[in-house]
């Protein structure tokens, strides 16, 4: 499944590979630019480290999973989340860049939601962290709107024709989080245990949450 990240296709007759080309040359150029910007006093290297640390270790799909788990466990919170996601999510401590305006869309037995950004790669950073490579790929961006069921099948999710697929193309600064269906067999589980079940893909809409 990780074919897109191998570097075994060269530039010459390459496939449409999207990641990791010319890695070492780019690394050198990035280092040179950072060095120049630091020398000019335009950026603070400690701030750069702090930004990297924020997205490397603090902000990721675990945040979204906690939101989902609480919504499953707390009907009042779920109602608030579906009514005003931005404030409900901020109440859990998650807010800001690329999640300034949040909407949560709920999967049900008859509705399946799928999030994409066809024009770039908009994604709800505060709750899911940085997007995976596949979400940013031309394949996903191009196909999610015209062939969502085909994309879902590739993710192993074959939906019956009568289940409505709702695709959310993030064309503005509204960011979407899918509230997946709570799986059977999770009665009585704590919110923390429930959060362990919730995958990133289930909150994008390319997967369901599997029963434990």
């Amino acid at each position, binding site marked *: *499944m*990780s*074919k*897109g*990240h191998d570097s075994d296709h060269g530039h010459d007759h390459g496939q449409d590979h*999207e*990641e990791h*080309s010319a890695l070492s040359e780019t*690394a050198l*150029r990035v*280092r*040179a*630019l*950072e*060095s*120049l*910007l630091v*020398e*000019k*006093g*335009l950026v*603070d290297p400690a*701030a*750069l480290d702090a*930004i*990297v640390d*924020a997205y*490397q270790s603090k*902000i*990721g799909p675990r945040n979204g999973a906690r939101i989902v788990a609480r919504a499953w466990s707390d009907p009042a919170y779920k109602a608030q989340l579906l009514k005003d996601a931005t404030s409900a999510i901020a109440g859990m401590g998650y*807010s*800001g860049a690329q999640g300034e*305006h949040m909407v949560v869309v709920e999967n049900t037995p008859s509705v399946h939601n799928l999030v*994409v950004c*066809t024009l*770039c*790669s908009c994604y709800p950073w*505060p709750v899911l962290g940085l997007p995976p*490579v*596949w979400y*940013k*790929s*031309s*394949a996903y961006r191009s*196909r999610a709107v*015209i062939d969502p*069921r085909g994309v879902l099948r*590739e*993710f192993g999710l074959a939906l019956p*024709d009568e*289940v409505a*697929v*709702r695709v959310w*193309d*993030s*064309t*503005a*600064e*509204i960011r979407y989080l899918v509230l997946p269906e709570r799986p059977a067999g999770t009665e009585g589980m704590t919110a923390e245990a429930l959060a362990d079940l919730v995958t990133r893909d289930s909150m994008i809409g*390319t997967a369901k949450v599997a029963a434990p």
Partner: protein
Amino acid sequence: MNGIHDMGGMHGFGPVEPEANEPVFHAPWEARVLALRRAAGAWRRWNIDAGRHSIETLPPADYLRLTYYEKWFESVIKLLLGAGLVTPQELASGRRDPAVPVATPPLTADKVMPAILAGSPTVRATSAKPRFTVGQAVRARGINPGGHTRLPRYVRGRLGTIECDHGAHVFPDSNARFEGEKPQFLYTVRFAARELWGETANPVDTVHLDLWEDYLDAA
């Protein structure tokens, strides 16, 4: 612009290929590009829409060939040069022009998390009244702006329904050109998949986009 970035509905890019246990960054330089772009952005010499447009205007063959962070890197160089924060000579030599005084970075380490948590909301107070109401039928305009726009080609000319009113938001088309925020009402518009793609689409499926008033006409 009808750029290569506007790829909704295109065929030919092959299967979606998820990576198991994907790391946040695939190489340290990717993280540095993310951080450089964010820290340089703190100078507020460009905005998010101009930033997006700088990626959209990469040569199309490069747009498809480069990785996400490679595109970000090429874009931040364009933005830095365009804003005059860096000169072409400095970029070529890698050394500061000694005639330019050393600056003081606006973003320091202590301000990083507060800045991330604050974000940059785009909703704006307005005394204007929304032109459309929830449930109203609208048609996406058949316009083809040459500059930045967030109206994808695949919905232009198509009939949809107003599903949600998000209030007035910064208008990307003008903001990307540094011609002002010109806030206007933003709506989620629902389109039937069959309206967008024809009779072979599933009749119960829908596609939802967030579209500004200037993108819409009453149907």
